[in-house]
């Protein structure tokens, strides 16, 4: 108890919003500009390095029969291509599957890296309070950027395939003329709201999970006895397992909905 009162935040904080915010780490000056690098941007760079290393090792192994890491990555990629992309994209699958794979593995890596408590490990090793790693997908700008890329990809690919006026006309299903303005307005509105729901779904899932874990760990600081600490730790373990499942699920849902939106904009149904 003395230790907790001296260092009031060893591995938990009283403010549950503390572990999920993005703080500036250092500043790179390029030319005349100062680029402030926050911990979420650093986690994006770490995810890029991790994916480059893992994908290079997975693609490098030879032979017709994949085994080991290549088997894992390849089975996930084949599942995404055959079960997620090909039913909606049809013959255009190979054009857009690189984007779907990238989105899935990038969001999955960011979500899984968020479960590693790097700032607490660094505090345990060096004793300096820092704010090194964090849940990068709990940042509305990062998820918003990915949703914006999906938005521009769907509409630009639709415009390139159909032409601008035919694509704008194909946004609405053929209905009688007297209800067409309402239907068209609803379709345009839903097309504009879709990137926001994509971004907010992933952002709020990750944010809520990490705030919940931080709140449960902060309960130990409030109550300061072993019973609450053991119950809180058991619950935190359970919630962390749920968070691992949600990490995979949210990456899959983002990739699925992206492929659905691309498929519905390049298909020539209506």
């Amino acid at each position, binding site marked *: 108890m003395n230790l907790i009162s001296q260092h009031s935040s060893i591995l938990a904080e009283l403010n549950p919003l503390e572990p999920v915010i993005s703080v500036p780490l250092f500043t790179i000056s390029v030319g005349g500009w100062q680029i402030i690098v926050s911990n979420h941007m650093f986690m994006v760079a770490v995810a890029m390095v991790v994916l480059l290393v893992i994908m290079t090792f997975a693609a490098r192994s030879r032979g017709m029969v994949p085994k080991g890491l290549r088997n894992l990555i390849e089975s996930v990629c084949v599942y995404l291509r055959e079960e997620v992309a090909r039913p909606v994209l049809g013959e255009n699958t190979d054009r857009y599957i690189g984007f779907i794979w990238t989105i899935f593995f990038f969001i999955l890596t960011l979500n899984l890296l968020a479960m590693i408590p790097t700032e607490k490990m660094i505090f345990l090793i060096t004793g300096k309070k820092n704010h090194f790693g964090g849940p990068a997908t709990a940042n509305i700008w990062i998820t918003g950027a990915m949703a914006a890329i999906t938005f521009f990809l769907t509409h630009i690919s639709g415009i390139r395939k159909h032409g601008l006026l035919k694509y704008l006309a194909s946004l609405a299903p053929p209905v009688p003329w007297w209800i067409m303005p309402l239907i068209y307005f609803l379709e345009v509105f839903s097309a504009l709201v879709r990137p926001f*729901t994509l971004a907010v*779904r992933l952002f709020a899932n990750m944010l809520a999970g990490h705030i919940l874990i931080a709140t449960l760990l902060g309960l130990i600081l409030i109550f300061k006895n072993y019973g609450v600490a053991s119950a809180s730790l058991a619950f935190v373990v359970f919630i962390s397992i749920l968070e691992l499942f949600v990490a995979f699920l949210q990456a899959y849902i983002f990739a699925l909905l992206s492929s659905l939106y691309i498929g519905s904009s390049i298909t020539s149904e209506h």
Partner: protein
Amino acid sequence: MAGFESSMLAVLSPGNSGLAIFGGIIGCGMIIIGASIGIGFIGGKAVEAIARQPEVAGRILTTMIIAGALIEGVTFFALVIGFLAVNWTH
């Protein structure tokens, strides 16, 4: 009773964010009621469908997960707006 009335007047007076917090939290509770009814309905229908035809259990499970995630997306959208209502003091 006088203390209750004066504290209610203090909460409801302008310049105090008591009513905003009250509205935001009540809104979040109602959103969760709607979302859990919807996802529970989908879960129940999925279990019924698996009971009728066990060999397509994999596809039904995938569809249930997708529908649950879509409803949860709308729920989190509304929860974020409800959470922002606590901070909208102007």
